[in-house]
């Protein structure tokens, strides 16, 4: 693992909101092609950590580099074009657009033709739109939601909206995919299905993935390595089996055993 190329490197990241230290001196490094988990109790700072990588938050201290380039103080749009894509914990699809339009969006977030062509509606723009639609359809098919492509996205069932978010994130052609609780609110069968799906996506698109998840089975099944956050601090880091047997992790999740008097 150590000889493969480093993708994401976060060192000594600190994020403070006023007096509250949401992320405290956290260092994380991910190599290309790895599947890394980020777990921790509620309020541990996991999503805040993601938000700082994607540029939604500016870190108070510390550095974040992706493939050797700094991400600090870059806008989310720039970071997206560097190959980092994400899904959101609270689903953020475009509810009034169709499913297909949702997935088309990252493909034309920087329009592929100029504005005058758009005004005149030249045939070249129609061709370009068609090409993008076809490409988007391929992502929908991959996620198994191609049959819903003309539906309004907001009317989809919850699980399908989650899938749509993943499809949309993939359409941005990422090399690093950040998944924020993709299995939230899913039952065991759906979780297993999701595990298979994520595993195949990771393999087929040659992605580096970082996953936040509360379903511990999903994380243990998928991840090569796991980072554990607690109250903003990095508790530990290791392989799934190391994490499972780590007393500190058990303490953070389940609390300390009361000492017998």
């Amino acid at each position, binding site marked *: 693992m150590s000889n493969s190329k480093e993708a994401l490197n976060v060192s000594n990241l600190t994020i403070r909101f006023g007096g509250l230290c949401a992320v405290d001196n956290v260092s994380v490094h991910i190599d290309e092609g790895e599947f890394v988990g980020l777990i921790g109790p509620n309020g541990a700072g996991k999503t805040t950590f993601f938000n700082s990588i*994607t540029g*939604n938050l500016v870190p108070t201290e510390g550095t974040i580099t992706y493939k050797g380039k700094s991400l600090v103080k870059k*806008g*989310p*749009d720039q970071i*997206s*074009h560097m190959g980092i*894509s*994400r899904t*959101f914990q609270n689903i*953020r*699809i*475009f*509810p*009034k*657009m169709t499913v297909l*339009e949702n997935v*088309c*969006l*990252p493909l*034309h*977030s*920087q*329009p*592929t*033709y100029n*504005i005058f062509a*758009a*005004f*005149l*509606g030249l045939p070249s*723009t129609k061709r*370009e*739109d068609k090409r*993008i639609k076809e490409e988007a359809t391929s992502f929908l098919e991959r996620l198994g939601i191609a049959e819903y492509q003309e539906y309004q996205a907001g009317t989809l069932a919850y699980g399908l909206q989650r899938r749509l978010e993943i499809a*949309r994130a993939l359409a*941005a052609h990422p090399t690093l995919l950040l998944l924020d609780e993709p299995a939230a609110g899913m039952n065991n069968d759906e979780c297993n299905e999701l595990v298979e799906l994520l595993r195949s996506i990771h393999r087929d698109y040659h992605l580096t993935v970082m996953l936040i998840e509360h379903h511990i089975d999903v994380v243990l099944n998928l991840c090569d390595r796991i980072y554990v956050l607690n109250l903003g601090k990095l508790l530990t880091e290791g392989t799934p089996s190391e994490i499972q047997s780590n007393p500190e992790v058990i303490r953070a999740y389940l609390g300390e055993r009361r000492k017998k008097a």
Partner: protein
Amino acid sequence: MYIISIIVTACTNIISVIGLALLTGYTGMFSLGHAGFMCIGAYTAVLLNKYLMVPYVLALILGGCGATLVSLIIGYPTLRNKLRGDYFAICMLGFGTIVRLILNNMNNPVTNGALGLTNIPKLTTLWSTLLFTAALVFFMWNFVHSQYGKNCVAIQQQEVAAEMMGVRIVRTKLLSFAISAFYCGVAGGQLAFWLQYISPATFSDTRSNDFLATLVTGGTNSITGPFLAAAILTSMLEYLRSLVNWRLVVYGLLYILIMRFRPEGIMGYKEFSLKKTIKFFKELPQNWPGYMEKFKEKLTGRRKRS
């Protein structure tokens, strides 16, 4: 002549409202000051024509460009600092008022202060108006259905996700703002060359509010909706002239009814299509009980439990 006058006024309103539709409907930024852009467009076009002998069509376009330029000057600082929602609307309200007050108080022979510009040649004709309106509506239709338009809608629906998917928020918003300003500028020029007289009071805040009200009536995420609304409301204003001041009461009532029974506007998120309209009227007899049921539900605010 009277009919032509109504048509020209309606077309002017259509152009401005459709310009506003891109900004407010598609991009989701409310503006209460677009009459200010109309004002700038009108003054620019008329003065260019008067002093530099710029031909009519070019004067209108340059008037639109003038409005665009001003929109960029005001838009860049406001949008870059993420002014949105009500804050942006109030900023625009201030802008509309400022434009009017500055012109009101500029007592020079060129702009002529509060007295306004008189003796403007009547260059706007029915056909030029229809042509301009058709062209501008056609361009806007293409634009909102292009990649640029979709990016605007994405910003309106879910700004955080749009930005994360790579949409350049400030640039896209500024673009939509500039285009809407251009449309209002052209409409202003057209109106000036038709009325033959403009003063700062021609472009009062009431006009901005009317645009917004017309847009909401027509349906925000639609081009045909605001088009129909602008056409209907403008001509209705003329038909109801016999009611004198009461026509504004009729207006208010109409807005209340629309807010109560169809908050998404006449067309809502859809576009007008002749086929669907014919189908609607063909199936009206058998669907009628269903519509009445829905109407009753809305009237009483209660839903029948089934």
